[in-house]
């Protein structure tokens, strides 16, 4: 449970781990795009795969696979969920 309280950036997630969005520190058009895709505080997100060279990374959000570059993902903050925890 201690682990669950730690705030990470989305880009630091390891493959296969689940987490919940805490805040978006993006601005401008990108912020709107991200919000439009349903990546909002509280959303569950899972890190699925990385591109052949390690970037971009694909995340599963609300049943959709979305790829983000690590620079952008670094500005999205998340709370790691321990196994089996489900909310919202």
């Amino acid at each position: 449970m201690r682990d669950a309280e730690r705030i990470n950036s989305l880009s630091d997630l390891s493959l296969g781990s689940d987490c919940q969005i805490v805040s978006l520190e993006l601005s401008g058009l990108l912020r709107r795009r991200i919000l439009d895709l349903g990546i909002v505080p509280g959303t569950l997100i899972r890190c699925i795969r990385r591109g052949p060279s390690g970037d971009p990374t694909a995340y599963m959000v609300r049943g959709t696979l979305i790829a983000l570059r690590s620079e952008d993902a670094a500005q999205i903050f998340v709370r790691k969920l321990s196994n089996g925890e489900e909310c919202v």
Partner: protein
Amino acid sequence: MCAMSPSRVLSEVYGQAECVRNSYLKSFSDQIVADIYGNAEQITKHVLSKKESQRISFDLTIDNLVTSKWFGYPLMILLLVGVFWLTIEGANFPSELLATVLFAFQDQLTLWFQWAGAPNWVHGVLVLGVYRTLAWVIAVMLPPMAIFFPLFTLLEDSGYLPRIAFNLDHIFKRAKACGKQSLTMCMGFGCNAAGVTSCRIIDSPRERLIAILTNNFVPCNGRFPTLIAITSIFIGGAIASYSGLINALVISTIILLGVAVTLSVSWILSMTILKGEPSSLVLELPSYRRPKIGAVIYRSMLDRTLFVLRRSIIVAAPAGAVIWILANVYIGDQNILSAVAHILNPFGQLIGLDGFILMAFILGLPANEIVLPILIMSYLSTGSLQDYSSLEELRNVLVSNGWTWLTAINVMLFSLLHWPCATTLLTTYKETGSKKWVFLSFLIPTLIGFTACFIFTQVVQFFGLV
């Protein structure tokens, strides 16, 4: 009174207000969006039931292969070669059949014109000019298009294309461009004008301009029948067996060269006139679908094949008439066509082409499809073209006009790297709204084409390889 001028105070207050408003609004708007999504989620939970696990695991399995470290890139290249191999092999027979039928009909037309007592020049312009060029364009263009477009639409429909963007994004990022540019390049295979329009999917204006300016380095459907014909004659034909596969490899190499040029030019543009850092990428990777065969055939045939064919026919018909007139109006003892080619010749020779080839490329500005037909027409400008029915005859025509493998490679290089067609230029103007970018989109490929052919020719001639 305060020492500060009122305007300064006001601007400071305004700045602070803006600051507060932004920080407040951000979290506030986040809250609103989160609530909307929360509501939507509640509703979907009530009304939708889905069985998901199987589909998602199927997607994951394919993605594991398609975007893997080791197989991702080889698979992309394999697909590229495969698509062109199928196109070349498949187009071979129908192309010859079409040519035989269409040129046989030309003889029939000639008989009818003679029977009607039409003057010679009417027969010349309409049959030897317009009809023959049309027959050429259709015989050379239609079969490859009718195979390539459905194959491409299949790939598009299956959901594979976004994976290409996913795999290639980091390379484009290094060129300070956007990974989605690879999607616009894919559209460019069909038609560069469509490719330029598709650049709208790129959010950042700077990266969109880069994608527009470099789209022409992908050979479009108007150009690769030319590439295929020339490879088949001079490279695949030289190595008898497996020639289809070798042709496909050559074409793929040319395309990879185009990709390399695209990346370099993107990078150079990012360092110079379109300075900037790569912005963001948000790319959706849709789940794979089984393509609907009927829809694929309908879309690729009606929307693409027939659309492109119609456009090239509209351009080719008047071009055919003009060519015939130029070839049959004499100044002194030389027809206009030869006279112009004669003037262009020294320049053409310098870059390993000749005057006729350069002229064909210039006259092909309205549509790249007609470059090869124009070239053949001009070589045979005496007016009596034997029926074209096989690549072998085409080879004889070209070789007797001094073509070597060096000429063939230069023509392919120049076809890949030269000015965009008029439609693409027009579309670029529509998309950018500025003559400056249109001019640049003309200038950049042209300069690169001349330089590449010049260097290649001079090097080969220096070492005496031809």
